[in-house]
């Protein structure tokens, strides 16, 4: 058997084949031969070496150096420096420093504290992690109004987008006397780029259930519905397992823990309309009607599902409740900042090194989130914009990187926290294309109930489409703002009231992108 001083493993997978790995490998063989190294260095093809960047990777033994994102021209340098001179080429080596000290932030996590730790399909592990302690505490030692007060004192605000104080919402429904009240969980998660609720439900379904139970007890509801988008198959599966286990253990059911309190939780699967995330359209859809919004008042808190008093809360909102009841409002309020207590789960995507999720204290700056929890910008790209809050969000530019992400600070810049989706864009992204995509979404999702929204979203799309095709006029920009402001004042629900936010922020912060498109003639 031949003895080689070095082995090179080349990763072959769809991505590397598409990036021309075969050509690069041939070149490498050729270069080694030219330098009389073919007898010393062995080249082997192997499966994927991992998904680093977009290109070709190879692993060199015995040094255990991984080169990533290789291009043809790099091969000459690697052969020269590494294989002839024995100096691994730092420039192309996979840098693990990004992830090596990656901070998952478990110490501060509240809603995702168990995600990535316990088995979501095993109720015993949830119990072992301290689960259902709050439920036991509430049923055996607390009165319903004490729960409402605790949640009020915690300062928790709704995480579904609007940021309405949760305790206050509960306090409207709790005192109403009715033969039936409901808790409805908004798990529709339709805001583009948002998948935080999915992470909570698939990673720790019992935490949501416990939050629902506590809410139901606080307001006196004996039935709860989780309205969940149909695409979330894994969440639905795990929630079904969790509900069945809770029933089996007597955590749900009649006369729970001998308290005399009855509760059951049901799942309703949605069919995928953005408007069905709006709480009253959601209720209509749940009742089997066409999903269009209702007039408010009466608010759902007074007349919601089947006209009964109903609290509608977002998944993340409710997933905060167990920790608040277990540890107290003060403990909770020690997270975050004044006016925005607790943590926030963000989903981060776009031109960053480590897209994905993070849960951090309210008030953490966008810069910190990008640097510390998303691995920073992809090399060679500079930050241009972030769309925060999904389609109904705002485009922030680099002057706002250090703004604290909380309700009050963002409001100063006419921005919103929204659903917690952060789409990071580098200077390779054109804002005309981005806004086009957002407005196409609104046109598609307008439900048709009211004129300002159905006609308005079509007109907005026509305007941006014209600009994108190079047929725009300067006055189109003012027209976009005028129409969307009009819609904000006259649309029936927040769907039609929202496009003004991405439009105004895109045009005001990135006007040059629009003018460039308008002026190419």
């Amino acid at each position, binding site marked *: 058997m031949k003895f080689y001083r070095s082995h090179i493993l080349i990763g072959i997978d769809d991505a590397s084949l598409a990036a021309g790995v075969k050509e690069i490998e041939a070149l490498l063989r050729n270069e080694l031969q030219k330098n009389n190294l073919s007898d010393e260095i062995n080249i082997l093809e192997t499966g*994927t070496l991992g998904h680093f960047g977009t290109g070709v990777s190879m692993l060199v033994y015995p040094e255990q150096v991984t080169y990533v994102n290789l291009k043809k021209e790099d091969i000459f340098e690697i052969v020269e420096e590494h294989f002839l001179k024995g100096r691994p080429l730092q420039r192309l080596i996979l840098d693990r420093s990004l992830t090596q000290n990656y901070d998952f932030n478990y110490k501060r996590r509240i809603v995702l504290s168990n995600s990535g730790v316990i088995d979501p399909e095993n109720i015993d592990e949830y*119990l072992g992690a301290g689960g259902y302690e709050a439920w036991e505490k509430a049923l055996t030692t607390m009165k319903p109004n004490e729960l409402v007060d605790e949640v009020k004192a915690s300062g928790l605000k709704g995480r579904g987008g609007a940021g309405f104080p949760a305790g206050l919402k509960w306090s409207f429904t709790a005192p109403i006397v009715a033969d039936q009240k409901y808790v409805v969980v908004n798990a529709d998660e339709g805001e583009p780029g948002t998948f935080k609720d999915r992470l909570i439900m698939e990673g720790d379904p019992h935490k949501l259930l416990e939050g629902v139970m506590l809410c139901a007890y606080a307001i006196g509801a004996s039935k709860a519905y989780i309205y969940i988008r149909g695409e979330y198959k894994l969440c639905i599966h795990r929630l079904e397992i969790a509900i069945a286990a809770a029933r089996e253990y007597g955590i749900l059911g009649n006369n729970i823990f001998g308290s005399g309190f009855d509760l059951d939780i049901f799942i309703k699967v949605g069919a995928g309309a953005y408007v069905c995330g709006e709480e009253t359209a959601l209720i209509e859809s749940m009742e089997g009607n066409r999903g269009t919004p209702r007039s408010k008042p009466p608010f759902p808190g007074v007349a919601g599902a089947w006209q009964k008093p109903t609290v509608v809360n977002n998944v993340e909102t409710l997933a905060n409740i167990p920790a608040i009841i277990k540890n107290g409002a003060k403990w909770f309020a020690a997270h975050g900042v004044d006016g925005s207590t607790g943590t926030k789960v963000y989903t981060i995507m776009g031109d960053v090194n480590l897209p994905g999720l993070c849960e951090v204290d309210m008030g953490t700056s966008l810069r910190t989130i990008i640097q510390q929890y998303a691995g920073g910008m992809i090399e060679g790209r500079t930050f241009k914009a972030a769309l925060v809050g999904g389609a109904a969000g705002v485009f922030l530019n680099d002057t706002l990187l250090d703004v604290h992400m909380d309700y009050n600070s963002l409001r100063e810049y006419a921005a919103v926290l929204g659903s917690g989706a952060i789409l990071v864009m580098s200077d390779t992204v054109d804002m005309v294309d981005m806004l086009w995509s957002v407005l196409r979404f609104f046109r598609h999702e307008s439900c048709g109930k009211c004129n300002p929204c159905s006609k308005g979203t079509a007109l907005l799309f026509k305007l941006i489409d014209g600009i994108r095709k190079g047929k725009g006029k300067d006055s189109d920009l003012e027209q976009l703002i005028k129409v969307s402001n009009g819609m904000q004042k006259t649309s029936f629900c927040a769907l039609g009231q929202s496009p003004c936010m991405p439009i105004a922020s895109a045009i005001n912060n990135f006007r040059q992108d629009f003018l460039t498109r308008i002026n190419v003639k």
Partner: protein
Amino acid sequence: MKTLEELRKIREKAQGEMKLRESDYRYKVVVGMGTSGIAMGAREVMKAILEEVSQRGIKNVLVTQTGEKGLSSLEPVIDVIEEGRPVITYGNMDVAKARKMVAEHIVNGKVINEYVVSTTN
């Protein structure tokens, strides 16, 4: 239907099992089985680990699943937990790497550096 007393017992037992020290296991292998992980092949990875463990008759390892913890772009992600040591997080795993991980890490106690994406105390 369980009484509160029974629930407390289940809780204590589960707490004990979650601490490796108080169990028969030396290693706990936790596969991230969220949507991203599954889309990137976590189910196959999990299956391969279970097969490898049973074929080799390894008794001191507990293999389990969990949701996403972060570093979603490096899925499938696997944590190998050993009492008193930093948690080793392997990323970009596949079936072949998972089998190798069992052979090297679980059987021989050797961390495979090139697959490690993060270590946490």
